């Protein structure tokens, strides 16, 4: 299939098919070239107005092609529908960063391929400086932490996960670091045994009070249970640095 008219880098028509991709593209100044988005791409607000052409489970190929895209940035190129986009001549770019450093790299890379190299580099460097500043702030003593990815079934994150990397940057020690699984189903027993001093609950709508009551029952009244906005923490996008700063502040605040 032929390239669309004006197929040069500056005239890209981009599909941002994962929430973190959406945030990155806007952050590197490619927001105006984004013509379609995936499910859950709700930040920045401007992205919400774009047509929704797929989810993490499936790309709606017809709707996507109707937008005449030249490039699709996806989390996983094996998602059903991606191959059809590629066959229709859409350039497929993958972005699945597993560390904060990889997020910054991906921002530079996306800046490059969308014709916003300078902005991409600057945005990544700014974030990099903030991450460094945090590293200087966190003390040597590492508090052990249980990250409650999901309450039922009880799930946490393994050492190779993106979230574990964020926890390390915040000066915390993830109690399930030894597990190589990205997300790991665990029992209350293992958490009890590891005796974390801190429990982090990503908040969407579930009540922090209920989870605090639950964990205090098991781990004693002294355990600290803090909530974190899930969007900032579980998306490997530029706002994770906001999340990191917020976490360090919350951990530091109550001693």
């Amino acid at each position, binding site marked *: 299939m032929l390239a669309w008219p004006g197929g040069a880098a500056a005239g890209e028509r981009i599909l941002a098919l994962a929430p973190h991709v959406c945030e990155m593209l806007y952050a590197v100044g490619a927001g105006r070239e984004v013509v379609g988005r995936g499910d859950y791409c709700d930040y920045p607000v401007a992205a919400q107005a774009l047509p929704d052409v797929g989810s*993490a*489970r499936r790309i709606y190929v017809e709707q996507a092609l109707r937008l005449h895209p030249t490039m699709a940035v996806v989390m996983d190129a094996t998602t059903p529908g991606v191959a059809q986009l590629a066959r229709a001549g859409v350039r497929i770019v993958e972005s699945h960063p597993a560390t904060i450093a990889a997020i910054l790299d991906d921002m530079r890379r996306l800046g490059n391929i969308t014709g916003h190299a300078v902005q991409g580099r600057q945005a990544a460097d700014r974030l990099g400086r903030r991450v460094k500043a945090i590293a200087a702030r966190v003390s040597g003593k590492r508090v052990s932490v249980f990250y409650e990815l*999901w309450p*039922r*079934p*009880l*799930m946490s994150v393994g050492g190779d996960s993106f979230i574990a990397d964020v926890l390390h940057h915040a000066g915390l020690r993830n109690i*399930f670091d030894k*597990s190589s*699984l990205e997300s*790991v*189903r*665990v*029992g*209350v*027993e*293992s958490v*009890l*045994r*590891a*005796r974390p001093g801190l429990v982090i609950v990503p908040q969407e*709508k*579930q*009540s922090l009070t209920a989870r605090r009551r639950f964990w205090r029952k*098991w781990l004693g009244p002294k355990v600290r249970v803090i909530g974190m906005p899930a969007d900032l923490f579980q998306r490997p996008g530029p706002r994770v640095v906001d999340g990191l700063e917020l976490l360090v502040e919350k951990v530091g605040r109550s001693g």
Partner: protein
Amino acid sequence: MTGMRIMGMVVLILIVMIIGLGAGEHWINPLMPGDGVDRMILLDLRLPRVLIAFSVGGLLALAGAWFQVLLGNPLAEPYVLGVAGSSAVGAIAGLMLFPHSAVAMSAGAFIGAWVGIIIVMAFAHLGAGRLLLAGVVLAAFWSAVIALMMAVLPERGVMRTMAWMLGDVSRADIPIAGLLLIWAIALACGMWVSRSLDMLLLGERHAMALGMDVPRIRRRLLLLASAVTAVAVATAGTIGFVGLVVPHLTRLLFGSLHRLVIPASAVGGGLLLVLADTGARTLLAPAELPVGVLTAMIGVPLFLWLLVRGR
């Protein structure tokens, strides 16, 4: 002879209970747990889990034994008439309507199970073969509804649904005494109908010739087996293989008299599920596996071995 069997069963229960309570990420001596965290883990986490697994496994095996006689089919198991599907639909509906409620999935599963049962009951008068066929077709229908619901469910809901469908006995909100009581009542009912089961096994014509009101007994059995399945499913989600394999295992070991098959199934199903759950939380500790995976991994080889040996 019976005394020996009872003794053997008691010893087996004790051994499995000690394994179930003791094994885990770390071994805890169940008789001397000490103080502090070990005691808490033993009494508040492992003991409830072992008791839930035991009663749910027992209920599933009883239901399986009943369905196998009722439908005159060795392949029958508690979910054969689509009860697993309809209860899963109910559970997902509960999750969709009340995403933050702890009991919505169980309540939904229980209601869903009964909806499925009531629909199946409408075909009960057709006889075993057609009832089975109706059940299989209904099961296909329910799985289509499940697929539809999963397609529109947010990702986290899908995760929770998948976990539910593979079985989970680690729930903290189960009234355990009540569950054990239901297990005991189910066992008593099973003993009570065991002679009818033996007669049904001879064939319906023989049973009728012996003066049995076959349609009435069949309806009762269907209701009983379904009620037991509904309780099991609402408690622990759908756990496969226990209901299929355990009744056959007990028949291979004890013969086909239901006076023996019923209690042996009620206990054997319980023990199998306790072992499976112990494996699920031990094998990859601290990671946990879905218990449904383990029931298949333990149950199937054991069953095949006995099939070959029994010839």
